[in-house]
Structure formats: C-alpha cells, structure tokens
C-alpha cells in the first residue's frame, strides 16, 4: 500500500463519516458533504497524475495495466456521478448516496494498489 492509497483511505473514510452523519441527522446535501466528496475526487486525481508520472518515468505496473487504468478512471467518475445524482433530489437520502462514494473509492484504491504491486 502506497501513499496514494493512504490519502484516499483518509479522505474516503472522513467523507463517508461526514455524509453518513449528515444523513442520520436528516440534513440535505450541503457544502460540507459535497466538499468532502470533492476531496475524495481530488485525491483520486492526485493518484491519476502520480500514476501517469510514474509510468512515464519507466515504472512497471505488475498486474494488467488496462485493469488498473479502468479502475482508476471509473473511480474518478464515481464522485461526479454521485454528486449529480444527489443534487437532483436534495433529501437526506442523497447524503447516503454521497456516503457510498468514500468507501467505494477506498475499496477501489486498495484493488488498484494490488494491481500495481
């Protein structure tokens, strides 16, 4: 597990906890929950840029490269889709949708790490 994974581990867990709490408190998606998901998106973009730099620098991905990139690009689309789906209907349930992003990104980042090493 590398630094990219741990960054996503932290932002993902924090985002999920914030969004879950907001949902349990019956709040609609607000700046806090949406920004926490944005933080997950930023950490995924950092992972993307970092991975491009590493591959360009000659590092080899141990597993299937296209599987790695498939996971990464799908993960990057998730927060965008979830925020879109959440703001179409601003109820507490949309915060649970946002909460799902953090854990999903976390699981996918773990898988990406497995593929890379």
């Amino acid at each position: 597990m590398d630094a990219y994974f741990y960054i996503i581990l932290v932002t993902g867990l924090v985002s999920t906890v914030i969004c879950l709490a907001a949902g349990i408190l019956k709040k609609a998606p607000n700046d806090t929950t949406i920004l926490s998901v944005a933080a997950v998106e930023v950490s995924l973009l950092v992972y993307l840029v970092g991975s491009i730099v590493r591959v360009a620098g000659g590092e080899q991905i141990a597993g299937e490269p296209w599987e790695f990139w498939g996971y990464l690009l799908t993960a990057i689309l998730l927060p965008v889709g979830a925020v879109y789906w959440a703001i179409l209907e601003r109820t507490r349930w949309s915060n649970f949708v946002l909460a799902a992003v953090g854990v999903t990104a976390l699981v996918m980042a773990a898988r990406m790490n497995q593929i890379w090493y």
Partner: protein
Amino acid sequence: MTAKPSHEDIGTTPGAAPSDAVTGSPDAAGDASAAPVGRDTRNTGPGRLLIAVYAVFAISATARAGYQILTKFSEAPLAYLLSAFAAVVYLVATVSLAKSGRTWFKVSVAAVLVELVGVLVVGALSVFDAVNFPHETVWSLFGRGYAFIPLLLPILGLIWLYRRRPAPKPASAS
C-alpha cells in the same frame, strides 16, 4: 424508514391514482405527466440510494465479467457466464428502478427476484460444491467478496418495491 410527509399529493387527490391506472399505457405515463402519480415512481428518497448502489454493482459486475470472459473464459466458462448473467441482472435492476410506471415496476420485481434466487443458489453451490464452483463471481459465498451487499441488496430492494407498489387496479377492470 419512518413515515414520510412527502406524499400528501396522493392524499389530496384520492381519485387520481385509480383513474390513472385505468388509462393504462404505463410507459407513456412515466415521462410526460411527471408529477401526478407519486406512487408510481421508485426513484426518490431511499430509492435513490438503492439505485446508486445497484449502479455501482452494475458497473463492477459488468467490468469484472467482461474482464473474465475476454482474458480467461476457457478456464471456467460456467462461472464467467454466471458473472455476465449477474451483470445483466444488475443493469436491468438499476434501469428499471430508476424508471417510473407499472411496467418498469414489474421489471424491477422480476430482476430483484432473479437476483435474490441467484445469490442464494450460487452462494449455496459455492459453499457445498466448492470443487465445481471454485471461480469467483459476484454471488460466490453469498457475496462475501463484496461485504455481503449482494445478499442484502435484493432483500432491501423487495422491501422498497413493496412499499412503493403501484395502486391496485379497480376490480372490474379485468
């Protein structure tokens, strides 16, 4: 899951639901008339979360099945076809839950029931006949590789569909 005050629109127009049902043509009713038939949509409130989780499973199951079939299909054709079948079921469930109307409701029920049977049968086979089912699918070991969400999802789906079932048609209709 407490009683939600958001459906007053149904209460205020008690005649609306049955008469709407008579006019039939559930597909057309969905998009065009938008608001009136509150009960005939399942994509609000908890349903949105359900659809989001189904969508994630549709994506991951499709990607996984595609990967397995493209790279190592001959290793375990049955398991990988099962993966593909699961992917299709998740796709149908996602789309049908997001759509409104009676027909899509029936499609949802069918998809979720197939999913429930699938996860139970494949889960049981992978436990009791591990020799013939050694290859992973979403439903293997009752979805243990996915935190048992594949087992939980159809149960929650059926509860949600039951709570949002369309108003019954008038008895004389048939």
